[in-house]
């Protein structure tokens, strides 16, 4: 399962990281180098072994359906990069359609 340049571009896109083509070969090498060491896992017999999910089997402690919310010692306006009329502001999606469904996901 070797990582290809296309894989790197794909996961960079998924992770919203701009990776300029010059760095792709280097990353391909690094990732394959690291993943090479992971092959050792393939040799372990894990038939019927439960994957670890969460630590401890106590189960989830639930909270009461009540306030108050945890207060902010400084308002959102105090640290948000861009706000207007109380709204957080971001640039409009350049290609809107391709993430429209995400908005509804």
């Amino acid at each position, binding site marked *: 399962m070797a990582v290809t340049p296309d894989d790197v571009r794909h996961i960079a896109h*998924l992770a*919203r990281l701009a990776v300029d083509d010059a760095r792709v070969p280097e990353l391909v090498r690094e990732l394959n180098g690291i993943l090479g060491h992971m092959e050792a896992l393939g040799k372990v017999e894990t038939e019927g072994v439960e994957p670890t*999910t*969460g*630590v*401890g*089997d*106590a*189960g*989830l*402690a*639930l*909270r*009461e*359906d*009540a*306030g*108050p*919310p*945890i*207060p*902010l010692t400084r308002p*959102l306006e105090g640290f948000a990069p861009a706000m*207007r*009329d*109380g*709204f*957080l*502001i*971001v*640039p*409009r*999606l350049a290609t*809107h*359609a*391709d*993430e*429209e*469904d*995400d*908005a*509804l*996901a």
Partner: protein
Amino acid sequence: MSGTMPSAAVLARYEMVVGLEVHVQLKTRTKAFCNCSTSFGDAPNANTCPICLALPGALPVLNYEAVRLATRAALALCCAIRERSVFARKNYFYPDLPKGYQISQYDRPLAEHGHLVIGTNADGSPVTVGITRVHMEEDAGKSIHDRYPGLTAIDLNRSGVPLIEIVSEPDMRSSREAGAYLRALKQIIEYTGVSDANMEAGSLRVDANISIRECGETALGTKTEVKNLNSFSGVERALESEFRRQVDVVSGGGAVEQQTMLWDGANGEVRPARSKEASHDYRYFPEPDLPPLVLATKWITAQREALPELPRERRDRMRTEYRLQEGDIEVLTASAALGDYFEGVARHHGDAKAAANWIMGEVLATLNATDTPLDRFRVRPADLAGLLDLVRDGIVSHSAAKRVFAEMVATGDRPEQIADRLGVRQESDAGALGAWLDAVIAEHPAEWQRYRSGERKLQGVLVGMVMKKSGGRADPRKVNQLLVERAIG
């Protein structure tokens, strides 16, 4: 988008196969994973905190009420509840998704294997749609794209509000069935008090998966997902339109491609939402910030026992208990509240048919005209029953009763008080009637003589005069009797 429309003959060769994914907002005071209020209409980002803003280091803590309501809905849909369900992260970037992932459930959802009865076949057997799963998740915030040119405005008040996603089996074969499923689902959600389930307000959202196949075929075709559906009728129209589009493609020798379509209600057509290469890879994995949700068998049983009477059970009971026509029962069980109202009136008054007629007539008309929800309607069942008693006992006439009712709606006073205030109680006391009759006889001796000597057709005239003198309060039946007695006597 192909504009051509396949002929009826071609359409008839195919059937649609529909499955629905419905998101329902749970009626909790606070959000799923933080203590922020779920109330709407507040100033943008007013209901936010370190957790729903996804500040560095903040962690989710699950709301008990969200679990209770989700379980309640799942039980009402006859699902099997998983005693150990697991939350998962659904990873994708969107500015109204603060953490960069949605906390949802994936391979071990809260509930599975349910079903919902959406109607009755000609042979009386129930039409059933399978429920694949019911899982818990959190809502995203709101992105407003048309407020500032070139910018998107984000309001995170909705971010983290608890939802359930209800996924149906692909069991529906027509847009009509899809509509029936949605109405039955909405009704059961309302009956259980899990949600307002209001599509206009966004507390109920629908996505549809639709494929087509030639009638008689059993294999499933390639499905498309239709989104942006904002009303039940919109769902039905969108399905019809997508059905025609797919038939057009397939009958033309083409192949339907798996993609997401958006319903454009204004132009009454569906259009592709995104290109295939941007297809998504959500990288689900178990949410490490939340241990598995473990529900005790005893607790689940208690939730099942706490379920209210559901729409179908209620209709069956009312059918036998009140012997009403199917149509009336449908209307009267539309909501739990209306059903309770009807039964309240029927129990106090006794005559279920009369109660049904008044509620389906005057009451619903008034509620619709003033669009008042039943719980804020001033006429309580006992009082309406009281009014119906007055009519039955001939104490107020049917036409007067409508005036009394109008006053009850306006003031909330009891019908007896209002009948007195309006002076519409019918007078049946012999003394009073006699006095009016004497007066009439005194004023019209000639007519009285002719009547006594057998000119029976004058009876109506004389009764009319008495009624007039009584200001309409005399009970006409009694006046007639009295007239006859005097004539003979």
